[in-house]
């Protein structure tokens, strides 16, 4: 009996040590390869970390599904309306000619782009699915300039890890990692279903990240900040979503 107990003790000890060091190694590797989301420390961070890490490994180069034109949802769906504040109203009255997208942070050449400039760059149109965390969804054709093109123009520094994007509505900001920022389907969208992007859908400029849920697709984008550390933004959880109780990574 004594012998067995000691053997059990030793086995348990070795297993525990192996487990703990295994976790430490996994944590180190995960950090090195950018597999830890910024909200990993919240109450349900363990599940989020598993999801984010698993999907980063699986989905690095995968393309969101694109659909035939016949699948476009009719009538077009609009969730919510544009900001009602004075600043937005004045920009709207001016036909958004004064709308600027500022790009700063870890870039070689910080810049501000007008909508006309953005529209002059190579564009990408894609018919993709947009799903809200509530459960509804719609399919539409989105047209915009790939975010990677804009990032190339400003010259992203090698150490950059995230792109933080801000809406003119100050409550709404979010961020994505470089895998999503440089993804060919991630676009700064200014067109919907062949026309201008309606205000209700985020016009004049909306971030479109088709491999993530609707709330990552922030409307009325005015600023991008490239960074290697999300701790400096808001409460340090990566975006406004975790501050409101929602996961930062929304690939599900």
């Amino acid at each position, binding site marked *: 009996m004594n012998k067995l107990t000691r053997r059990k003790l030793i086995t348990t000890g070795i297993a525990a040590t192996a487990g703990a060091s295994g976790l430490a190694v996994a944590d180190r590797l995960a950090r090195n390869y950018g597999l830890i989301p910024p909200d990993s420390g919240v109450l349900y961070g363990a599940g989020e970390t598993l999801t984010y890490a698993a999907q980063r490994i*699986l989905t690095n180069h995968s393309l969101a599904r694109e659909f035939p034109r016949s*699948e476009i*949802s009719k009538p077009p769906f609009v969730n919510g309306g544009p900001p009602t504040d004075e600043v937005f109203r004045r920009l709207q009255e001016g036909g958004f000619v004064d709308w600027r997208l500022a790009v700063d942070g870890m870039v070689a050449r910080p810049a501000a782009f007008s909508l006309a400039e953005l529209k002059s760059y190579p564009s990408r149109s894609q018919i993709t699915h947009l799903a809200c965390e*509530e*459960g509804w969804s719609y399919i539409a054709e989105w047209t915009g300039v790939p975010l990677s093109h804009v990032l190339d123009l400003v010259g992203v520094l090698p150490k950059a890890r995230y792109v933080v994007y801000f809406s003119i509505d100050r409550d709404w900001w979010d961020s994505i990692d470089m895998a999503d920022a440089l993804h060919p389907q991630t676009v700064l969208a200014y067109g919907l279903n062949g026309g201008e992007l309606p205000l209700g859908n985020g016009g004049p400029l909306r971030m479109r990240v088709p*491999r993530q849920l609707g709330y990552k697709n922030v409307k009325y984008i005015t600023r991008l900040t490239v960074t290697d550390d999300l701790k400096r933004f808001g409460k340090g959880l990566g975006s406004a979503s975790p501050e409101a109780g929602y*996961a930062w990574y929304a*690939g*599900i």
Partner: protein
Amino acid sequence: MQNRAFYWRIRKQRKAGRCFEKRKGRGCAPTGKKEHARSFGGALDTATVLRVSSKDGANCYHFLVGDSAWISTSASAIPAATTVPARHSAMVRVTHWITTLCFFALLVTGVEILISHPRFYWGEAGNVNTTPLFKIPIPASRSTVPTGYGYVLPDQNGWSRYLHFQTAWLAVLMGLLYVSWGVFSGHFRKNLLPAGADLSWRAFAAAVAKHARFKPPDSSSYNLLQRLTYLSVIFVFFPLVIWTGLAMSPAIASVFPAMVSVLGGQQSARTIHFFVSVVLLLFVLVHIVMICLTGFKNRMRAMITGRDHE
């Protein structure tokens, strides 16, 4: 054959007559009724006791062996096996209770997520401009859904989603552990796969009829309906609920688009996810009712300690 029928759990073995523990509080009155071993304070595990008679202070047991043959034996003739294997192995018990916790967490958070948009669609896309497949006539937790109710429920979607996905991970890991162990240890083959002879409509009809008449089981091993139910929950409904859950993920859909398209679309996946969850909930409810009917205390003890009887 004889040994297989006798799984003994000997509580008190009297030196002289090797007599077994008496039926609690009732003595060893002869009985002509066919009674299941379990009602004898746990003396027997798999054999059916037909009759117990008392002779010279020592009990004489009459057992049904197999389907028709039966033997009478005095206690002294009973093989002196001493321990009964645990009804549920530690692996079954641990994965059972962790999965139970997961199920209820997934259920509560799933309902929370559902009430933010209690409408279901078929196909790829669906929203309030789309004709729903059906609506659940409850108020919603978001003002974006026209429910006909004049108020909006408190929104609990954030933590519900976090907890739903975290719990899903735990449930999936438990499932993988259980299934790989079940294959490796022969648990499925021994305890869940129906015997070849049972795989006929006749056997199935007989099992259904027996259930309908609330007849107690012949033995402590799982009966045909139980086996089929557990197998379908483990190998059909759980995989289906995981699949339809993953099919709702835009990132997973980008890697495995066929996972979504064979279901008919992302909204179809959501709808199927809902129905499979309902099936699983019904399973759990019936499971609980069956436990109450067959002896709540014994069944709970068996799943917690592994021992069938006190």
